[in-house]
C-alpha cells in the first residue's frame, strides 16, 4: 500500500535542520573500499580509452571504422546523446524551479551535476572525431558566422559556462557550511578540502544582502539557462537539418531533438536518483512521491517524443521520395530495421505503457524503464547519424567494401567507454566532496512543510472550535 499511495509532503516535516545536514554530508566524510575499487576500475577503463585515442592520433582516423562516406560514426552519435542528456539539469532544475515545484529540491543537484558532466564529455566528442584535434582552433581563426558548426560551438560553450555556474550557485551556502564545519585540518587531504570549500563559498556569510544577491542571480540564471539549453540541442540538430541529405533534411529536427533530449535527460536523472538514493540512504528525502512525479514528467515527454517521432517518419514514409525512400526502406525493413523497431517499440512504446500505471512509476520499475530509454536514445542517435551517411544522393560505387558499411571498431568503443568512465569518475568524485542534495533548499523545504502542517492543524482546530467548542477546549 505504501508503494502506491504516497505522502503529500515534498520533504518530511519532522526532519530537523541538523538531521538533513548530517544526512547530506555523511557520504563526503569517508572513502570506503568499494569507492576506491570503483574508481580504480573507472580509471583503468579511461586509461585504456586514452591508449586507444593515442593510437588514433598516431595512426589517424584510418584506425577507426570510419571511412569516406561514414565520417561521423559512434563519436558524433555519442556527442548528440551526451548533449541530449545535458538537458536533464535544465528540465528538472530550471523548469521546475521557475514553476515553483517544491518537490524538486532534493533532486536538483543530481540533475545539475548530470548536465555538467555530460557537457564536459559531450563537448569533447567532436574534437575526438577530428583527425587533427589541434585544428579546432581553425574554427576561431577561419570561423564562418553562417555555419551551423560555428553556432554549435558558440552554443555549447555558452551552455557549458551557464550550466557550470548553475550547478555552483546553489552550492555556495552549502560550501560555506562545509567550510565552517571542517575544523580539523591536520590531514593534508582535509586541508585541501577546506581550501576547496573556502574558494567555492566565495566568502559566504549568509547575510541578508548576500542572500538577496544570490536569489537575484539564481533567478536570472534560471530564466537564461532554459533558452540556452533549448538553443544548444536545436543547433545540434541544425548540423544535420541544414544539409540536403535524406533523413536529415527535416523542418522538425529542432523540436524533435529538444524533445528527445529532455526525454533521455530526465530518464538519466531518474537513474541517478535511484542509484544515489540507494547508495547514500536518501530514502527519507527522495521518496516514492518524487519517483511518481518524475515518472509522470518522463511519461509526458515520451508521449511528446513519440508524437514527433511519428511525424519524422510518417510523412516521408508516406511520400517515399527516391533518395529518402532508400533510407527509409533500410530503416523499416533493411539492415537497420532491428535497431529501428527496437527503438520504437522497446524504448518508446513499452515505457509509455509501463509508466501509465502507478506501479510503473516506482523506483524499481522506473530504473528498468529509464535504462531502456537511455540505451534507446543512444541507439536512436546512431540511427540518425549513420544510415543517412550510407545513403548519399550519388550512389556508392567502385569503392572498397569497407566504405559502404560501418560498425564501430575497438578504437571507437574504447574511446567512447573512456568518455563514459570519465563522466562517472567526475560524478563519483563530486559525490565524495560535495553533498548530493542542496542542503539549504531541503532545509527550507522542510520548514515550508512544517509551516504547512501547523497551518493545516490551525485550520482544523478552528473548524472544530466552530462546531464543537468543548472538544476544541479539551484539545488545547
Amino acid at each position, binding site marked *: 500500500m505504501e508503494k502506491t499511495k504516497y505522502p503529500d509532503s515534498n520533504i518530511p516535516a519532522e526532519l530537523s535542520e541538523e538531521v538533513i545536514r548530517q544526512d547530506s554530508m555523511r557520504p563526503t566524510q569517508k572513502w570506503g573500499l568499494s569507492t576506491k575499487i570503483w574508481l580504480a576500475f573507472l580509471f583503468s577503463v579511461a586509461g585504456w580509452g586514452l591508449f586507444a585515442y593515442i593510437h588514433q592520433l598516431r595512426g589517424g582516423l584510418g584506425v577507426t571504422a570510419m571511412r569516406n562516406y561514414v565520417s561521423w560514426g559512434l563519436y558524433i552519435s555519442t556527442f548528440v546523446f551526451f548533449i541530449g542528456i545535458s538537458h536533464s539539469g535544465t528540465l528538472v532544475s530550471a523548469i521546475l524551479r521557475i514553476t515553483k515545484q517544491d518537490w524538486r529540491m532534493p533532486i536538483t543537484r543530481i540533475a545539475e551535476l548530470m548536465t555538467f558532466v555530460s557537457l564536459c564529455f559531450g563537448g569533447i566528442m567532436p574534437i575526438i572525431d577530428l583527425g587533427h584535434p589541434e585544428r579546432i582552433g581553425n574554427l576561431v581563426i577561419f570561423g*564562418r*558566422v553562417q555555419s551551423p558548426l560555428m553556432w554549435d560551438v*558558440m552554443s555549447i560553450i555558452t551552455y557549458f559556462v551557464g550550466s557550470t555556474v548553475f550547478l555552483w550557485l546553489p552550492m555556495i551556502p552549502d560550501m560555506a557550511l562545509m567550510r565552517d564545519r571542517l575544523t580539523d585540518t591536520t590531514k593534508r587531504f582535509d586541508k585541501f578540502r577546506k581550501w576547496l570549500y573556502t574558494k567555492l563559498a566565495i566568502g559566504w556569510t549568509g547575510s541578508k544582502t548576500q542572500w538577496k544577491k544570490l536569489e537575484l542571480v539564481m533567478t*536570472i540564471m534560471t530564466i*537564461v539557462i532554459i533558452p*540556452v539549453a533549448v538553443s544548444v540541442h536545436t543547433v545540434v540538430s541544425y548540423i544535420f537539418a541544414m544539409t540536403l541529405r535524406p533523413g536529415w533534411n527535416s523542418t522538425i529536427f529542432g523540436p524533435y531533438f529538444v524533445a528527445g533530449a529532455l526525454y533521455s535527460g530526465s530518464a538519466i536523472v531518474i537513474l541517478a536518483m535511484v542509484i544515489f538514493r540507494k547508495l547514500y540512504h536518501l530514502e527519507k528525502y527522495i521518496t516514492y512521491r518524487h519517483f511518481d512525479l518524475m515518472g509522470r514528467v518522463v511519461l509526458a515527454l515520451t508521449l511528446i517524443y513519440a508524437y514527433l517521432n511519428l511525424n519524422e517518419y510518417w510523412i516521408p514514409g508516406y511520400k517515399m521520395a527516391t533518395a529518402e525512400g532508400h533510407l527509409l526502406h533500410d530503416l523499416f525493413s533493411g539492415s537497420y530495421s532491428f535497431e529501428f523497431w527496437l527503438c520504437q517499440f522497446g524504448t518508446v512504446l513499452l515505457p509509455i505503457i509501463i509508466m501509465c500505471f502507478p506501479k510503473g512509476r516506482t523506483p524499481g520499475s522506473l530504473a528498468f524503464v529509464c535504462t531502456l530509454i537511455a540505451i534507446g536514445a543512444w541507439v536512436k542517435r546512431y540511427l540518425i547519424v549513420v544510415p543517412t551517411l550510407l545513403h548519399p544522393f550519388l550512389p556508392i560505387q567502385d569503392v572498397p567494401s569497407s566504405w559502404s558499411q560501418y560498425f564501430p571498431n575497438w578504437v571507437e568503443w574504447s574511446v567512447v567507454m573512456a568518455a563514459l568512465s570519465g563522466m562517472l569518475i567526475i560524478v563519483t568524485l563530486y559525490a565524495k566532496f560535495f553533498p548530493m542534495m542542496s542542503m539549504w533548499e531541503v532545509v527550507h523545504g522542510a520548514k515550508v512543510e512544517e509551516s504547512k502542517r501547523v497551518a493545516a492543524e490551525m485550520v482544523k482546530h478552528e473548524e472544530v472550535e466552530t462546531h464543537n467548542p468543548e472538544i476544541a477546549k479539551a484539545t488545547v
Partner: protein
Amino acid sequence: MKTLKINLDMSSYSRVIIACATLFIMVSFAQAQKSESSIQLSFSKKTDNSRIVSALVMAKNKAGKFLPAQNAHVNFYIKKDKEQVLITKTNTNGAGKTSANLPKELAMDDDRYFTVTVKVENDEILEDAEEELHLKDIHVTLNLNPTDTSRTATAVVTETASDGTEKPIKDIAINFYVQRLFGVMPAAEEHSVSTNEKGEASFVYPKGIPGDTLGKITAVAMIEDNDTYGTVEAKNECAWGKPLLLDKDPFPRALWGAHAKWPMIILLCCLYGGVWFCYFFMFYQLRKIKKEGESELLIKN
C-alpha cells in the same frame, strides 16, 4: 706500405667463421624474404613538349597477388650511345606510382626512337626488376581558327625526318576532348578521327560547350596509348564555347552563402550577446557577494 699482421688462434678462427656464417645466413634470409616485383610503364608527351614516363610498381604478396608497392626505389635510365644513363632516382607513392621528366634534349637513334629503362634496384623489400620503353618521337599540333563558325579543329601529326624536315604520319587515331577542371571530357560521342596522307585529322566541335566567362574552351587532341608513340597530346584555346554567366547571388533568399547576411549576424550577436551580458551581470553580483563576505569576515576578526 705497412703490412698488417693478424695472429689468430683457433678460437678466433672459429669466431670469424661463425660471424661470417651468420652474416651469410642473414643476407640469404633477407634475399629470400624479398618479394617479386613488376613494373608497368606509360609515356606521355604534353603540349609544351615535356615528356613524362610514369611507372607503376607492383609487388607479389604471400597470397601470390600483385599489389601496388609503396616507397619502392625506382631508377630511370635513358639509352645514350648504347649506354644507360641515369636520369633520376625516385620512390613510389602510396599507390605504387612514380614518374620522371625526360630531358628536353633526348638521345635518339637515326629513326628518332628513344629508349627508357626503369629499374627497381637496391630495394630492401623488393626483388630487382626492370622494364623498357622503346618509342618514336612525334609532334602533334592543334590548329583552331577563332573566326571559323563551323568550329573545325585540325590536328597535324608529324615526325622529324633524318634530314630535319617534318614528315606527316597517316592512319593514326586522334581523340578530341575538351579540358575540364579534373580531366578531359570527350568532345562528342564519336570523338576519334584518323589522320590522312597529310597527317591531318579534322574534327568539328559541337556547339554550346560550357566555356569560361569569355566562352573560351581548351580543345585537346590526343594520341592515346599508341604502341609506337605512347600518349601524345596537343592543346589549344579558342572562344568556341558558351560564355559562363556568373550569378553573383545564386540563392538570393537563402541565408547560407560565401558571406553571412547582415540580419543573421545581428540576430546571432543579439542572442549570444544578451546571454553573455546576463552572465557578466551575474559574475559582477557574485563579486559583490565575495567582497561583502570578505569585509564581514574582516570585521568579525
